[in-house]
């Protein structure tokens, strides 16, 4: 067990400082944790997630990954390409690409040749029950399939950290459970740390740690139960 991400007194302002989205947040996450960041809409939880994976830049404070301060777009991009996988509420799949290509696009630059990328993408699609959907565009997939594809893409480079911003926000209850099961499975099979931003207490309850955000600050930080046992059909290599 070692420290994976550390936010030290991080703040993020918008509109020239008139809006303080995150203020003085310090948070350390270990490499074997599952963390739920909860809070109301506009509480600043998604902004914290963006800062954790370098999608946004802190106005104040410092973000460290595996013990090293990360500065600059290129450094963050390199981390996201190899160490961090991101799942978004709205999937954020590229509509001009097929399901297979949506995974391959995350592998470009990390995995040698086109053939290797294709094999890896097909492998992931098969593991997520999407083998038959490889050539379809995202618009042709169901909501659950899209989210599974987004998770497959996030896990393509075998990341150390999987961050998910409201991963079940656009899904029905049954599909949400399936998605959380897949995320839990990734945690167990890969040893991937997981940070989930959610306003859904049921989803938060599946995580080992619950961080509550309000008005851009941490209101509580409690360790809870472990992630649920994954469904056997969704094992990930």
């Amino acid at each position, binding site marked *: 067990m070692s420290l994976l991400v550390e936010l030290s007194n991080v703040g993020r302002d918008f509109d020239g400082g008139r809006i303080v989205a995150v203020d003085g947040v310090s948070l350390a996450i270990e490499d074997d944790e599952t963390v739920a960041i909860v809070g109301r809409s506009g509480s600043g939880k998604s902004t914290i997630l963006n800062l954790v994976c370098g*999608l*946004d830049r802190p106005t104040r404070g410092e973000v460290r990954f595996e013990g090293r301060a990360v500065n600059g*777009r290129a450094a963050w991009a390199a981390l996201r390409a190899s160490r961090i996988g*991101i799942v978004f509420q709205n999937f954020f799949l590229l509509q001009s690409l097929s399901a297979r290509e949506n995974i391959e696009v995350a592998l470009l630059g990390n995995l040698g040749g086109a053939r290797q990328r294709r094999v890896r993408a097909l492998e992931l699609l098969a593991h997520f029950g999407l083998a038959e959907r490889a050539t379809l565009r995202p618009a042709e997939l169901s909501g659950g399939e899209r989210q599974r594809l987004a998770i497959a893409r996030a896990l393509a*480079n075998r990341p150390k950290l999987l961050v998910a911003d409201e991963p079940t926000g656009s899904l029905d209850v049954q599909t949400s459970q399936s998605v959380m099961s897949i995320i839990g499975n990734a945690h167990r099979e890969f040893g991937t740390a997981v940070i989930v931003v959610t306003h859904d207490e049921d989803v938060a309850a599946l995580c080992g740690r619950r961080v509550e955000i309000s008005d851009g600050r941490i209101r509580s930080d409690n360790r809870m139960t472990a992630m649920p046992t994954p469904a056997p059909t969704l094992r990930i290599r």
Partner: protein
Amino acid sequence: MTELTLPLRGLISRPLRTLLTVLGIALAVAGFVALTGLTAGVQHSFASGINENGADLVVSQRSAFNLVSSAVPKSLSSGLSAVPNVEAVSGILLNITTADDAANIVMAGWPSDSFLWKDMHLLAGRIPAPGDQWSVILGESIARALDKRVGDTVELQFQPYRIVGIASFSSVLNQNSAIVPLEGLQQLLSREDVFTLYEVRLKRPLDKNDIAVARTRLIAAAQGFEVGDTEQFSSSIRIFDLLRAIAQTISLVVMAMASVAVANTLLMAVNERTFEIGVLAALGWSPRRILRLILIEGVIMSAAGGVIGIILGVLTMEMAAKTNFAAGLIVPYLSGWSIAQALIFVFIAGPLGALYPAWRATRLLPADALRRI
């Protein structure tokens, strides 16, 4: 999937805009190819036309502004003829005029005793008889274009000429020219004491060294005048430099406009695809890779525009050369250098136009980009 997949899909997903931008580049390249090609074509046409007459060297006015303004005095004739190894010398007078006010045509006035008549390949009729100063031999192409036959009359330089022969030539210039007796043309142009140039034929057998030696001697005999082969002669005509400069300036402006079109298209594409760029950044695409993505789009459009432009340019030249007023004076001339210049342009202008949009794409914070859906 390769590095090219996304740029290609990006371009295909906006077919009309891509097409219009490619067309813009193509027109710029076509303009460049056509303008430079036609300019070079005029020069080449004159050189090949004079070369066909059998001259090895040409004596002309140094740095004459245009072809017909060159003036070499008649008095040089004897001195040039006396140069060792010179077989024959013929002064000729050139003029560009209209034939029956329907087509531009080159009139060449040849002395009746010129060696040039000997190699003429007559298809019909005869060469002008001595003293018959208002008779003409038309090149086969211009005769056909004007629908003229031996015995007909054609008006040249406001003077009716009787067609006494139709001749076939290998050069387009001569195929569209009118050969007339020198004396009549001198009168019409009031240039009794000068020629446009002298064509000098050297004795055979002949090698490069013989030509060089003869050239040195001719320079001595015609001090202050230009002595060279037909290509050197056409290169020394200053109007060709002027035409080239105009063509290049216009081409540069048009190409700069094409570059701006590329920039505009890609800037709009970057704005439209902010979300896609945000996703790529979120997936770990480095700023450099995103920059490359946009640049590749620019290069693809430019390359397509370049190829289409070269084809359009050639077609434009062919069409221009077929018009009545250009036939024979302009021969399409597409040099490897012209193609290389056009390609150099597209591979500079494309990425140059794409550079700013690409740079802007890399300046986006992924979170900002993803918020813009």
